[in-house]
């Protein structure tokens, strides 16, 4: 059983930043945890009832109130500010696409549409895969995320990517994988009876391998 608070390995250009914020928070909350719980247990032990000793008659200290208001406030706001940068990178600043695809979730599968040899989506040479997303490494994959029925959530754990798919909306989500391999696609929003079966595979290739795969797919799925 894995009791570690370390995150599993991640493989995208942003995952390092996301994991970094996590570890910053882990340090801060971890230290706070040990100090506060430590004080709690220490006080329980040291000030437990003993005959003849009376409690102190102390109503408070404005100085302490100010201190333990301002210090946490500064810390959490700092965490917020640092987080914003990474958030903007992931959700706001969409890089130019190396590969554009459409991912459409429906009960209970993911349908992925690729642009085909002409490089443009929405043309007759587009092809599809079911429950698989094939992508080249080191290129920004920009996804137009859709849903055909209910809310789903497109989750690439190893890429640290998650975005709800909302019916009636086209939502942009992107990632850039840094290493070829087989990864996971998951659905992270309860979508009905088959929610548990909406797993898929993210397969990242080298650029050359992806080219090869893409061409053969396009040929196979020629109308």
């Amino acid at each position: 059983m894995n009791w570690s608070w370390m995150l599993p390995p991640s493989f995208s250009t942003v995952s390092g930043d996301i994991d970094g914020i996590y570890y910053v928070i882990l340090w801060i909350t971890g230290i706070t945890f040990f100090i506060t719980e430590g004080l709690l247990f220490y006080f329980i032990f040291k000030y437990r009832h003993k005959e003849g000793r009376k409690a102190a008659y102390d109503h408070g200290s404005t100085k302490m109130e100010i201190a333990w208001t301002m210090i946490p406030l500064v810390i959490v706001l700092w965490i917020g500010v640092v987080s914003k940068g990474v958030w903007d990178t992931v959700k706001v600043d969409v890089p130019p696409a190396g590969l554009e695809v459409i991912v459409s979730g429906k009960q209970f599968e993911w349908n992925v549409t690729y642009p085909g040899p002409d490089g443009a989506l929405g043309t007759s040479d587009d092809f599809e895969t079911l429950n698989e997303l094939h992508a080249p490494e080191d290129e920004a994959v920009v996804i137009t995320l859709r849903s055909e029925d209910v809310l789903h959530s497109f989750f690439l754990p190893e890429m640290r990517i998650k975005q709800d798919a909302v019916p009636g909306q086209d939502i942009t989500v992107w990632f850039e994988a840094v290493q070829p391999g087989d990864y996971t696609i998951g659905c992270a929003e309860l979508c009905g009876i088959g929610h548990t079966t909406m797993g898929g595979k993210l397969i990242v290739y080298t650029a050359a391998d992806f080219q090869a795969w893409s061409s053969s797919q396009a040929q196979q799925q020629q109308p």
Partner: protein
Amino acid sequence: MSTIEQEMVHAAEGGHHDHHELPFIRKYIFSTDHKMIAKQFMFVSLFFLVIGGLLATMMRWQLGYPGEPMPGGMILPDAMMAPTPDGAIMLPEFYNSLVTMHGTIMIFFAIMPLLVGLFGNLLIPLQIGAEDMAFPRLNMISFWLAVPAGILMLASFWVEGGAAGAGWTSYAPLSASGEWTGVYLGQQLWLASLTILGFSSLVGAVNYITTVINMRAPGMTWFRMPLATWALFITAILILLAIPVLAGALIMLLFDQTLGTGFFRPEVGGEPLLWQHLFWFFGHPEVYILILPAMGIASEVLSNRARKPIFGYHSMVLAIIGIGFLGWIVWGHHMFMSGMNPLLGTSFMISTMAIAVPSAIKTFNWLATIWKGDIHLDSPMLYALAFVSMFIIGGLSGIFMASTPVDIYIHDTYFIVAHIHYVLFGGSLFAIFAGITFWFPKMFGRLMNETLNKVHFGITIVLYNLVFWPMHNLGLQGMMRRIYDFTQYEYLAPLQPMNRFISISVFLLVAAQAVYAINFFWSIFRGEKAGNNPWNSNTLEWTVPSPPPHGNFPEMPVVYRGPYEYSAPESEEDFLPQTKPPSKKPPVQDPIPQPVTPTPEGF
């Protein structure tokens, strides 16, 4: 004149009601006495707490032993469990209903009515020196609305299609049409039940707010009110303003399901995100409704059992108000991944980070309260200390999900489930244990058995942490929520042993609650008899007999000081009740100016 007005005239004429014995039905069933209504809420809510626990037990069976026949499963209908030669295996539709109903029942029918229905009703009039609530008959209506709501909710398990299965958050469009879940009537019963319960909570809130504003005894200024009453007062305001928004949303969803309207259904132009905004605009204040009274209870018990004034009383009040106020502007942190504008994500992150501060302030003040105290480690204190300890964990884990980039990874994973349960179980439920144990003598005239409570506490605190701490790890490994069979995901299959470990801990934890239940019922009849003030407390409820008579106070109480004057130098004992008149000789050390005559006005 109206009966309510008659009651007021009665009260004005000396506060004595005719003490004719009420018939059984008026005394125990349709009671207008806040203390009886409090007990009614308590019994019904504890029943639902058990139901909620059983639902979780079944869920954990499936997670610990995926696809294996569940012991006892054969008695459940085929719609829930698929019969096989080896026994009954849980179906995914039933699993989704379990997830949904566990959350719904625990939040709406267990924790909320325990904190607000039990403690609000029991404590508010007694702690402010009133003879009952402002509107006793409305109070009775509040309870008797909650009962049919509960019946409807339970009944939904037996209708065709089963109970609601879209999560306690009931996101649309999944919840808006039975074609997506296979649940039709069950989902509608869920909506109807919560709408009725909403009315119950709403009229309760009107009662509590009016009572606290208008019916405080002479000398009971705002800043002499106990923190439990403050917390319940602010909670009532949150209920008053949040529940109507939920009601509107529930009604719109019900119309979508039954009338073919299109509020949340994109196929006819509706907006799924509108549901989320409405739900969470209610939902976030709701979670503060679920923790504030617990914080109030903890403050009472910690101060009393440490025989020491609450550290920073004014800050504590301001923190309660601050949490109540800030709670309205953070709802979007439940929606970071929803597809709403990322800029909104940033603004909600900032407000969410800010709301950590008042909770931190309270935690530091609790630590400072027991610092240099004279700590009596009896069972209410143990539960209250556990509240602080577990709340620290729950609160700190919240910071991870408040950070939008980290939430990308942990949203809708078991990390969130861990956070929820550390604040709701580790926090609220432990505070409820503390509160029930502490005020048990006031309710029943007898004390609970200390040894049994300590045994219960010891077993529960350990098993509880064995259940919920590893859920942080599961979430960090990427295990998502509401998932019937996570082994379908290759990367999650290694989490099987930890899930089984959690499940076994749950079975033991649920079983161990029998200790508290046995103690509870046994003590009602055979517990050691309690006097007026077994805890040597300062607040007004302890100046009257246990249990208090109808009308509470034989004479109008007069309040001379705040509620936390423990170990005050001018008192021989280590407590100084709020209503004890000040002695004639000037006190040696008097940091708080004491009024010589009680003045009702002013802060």
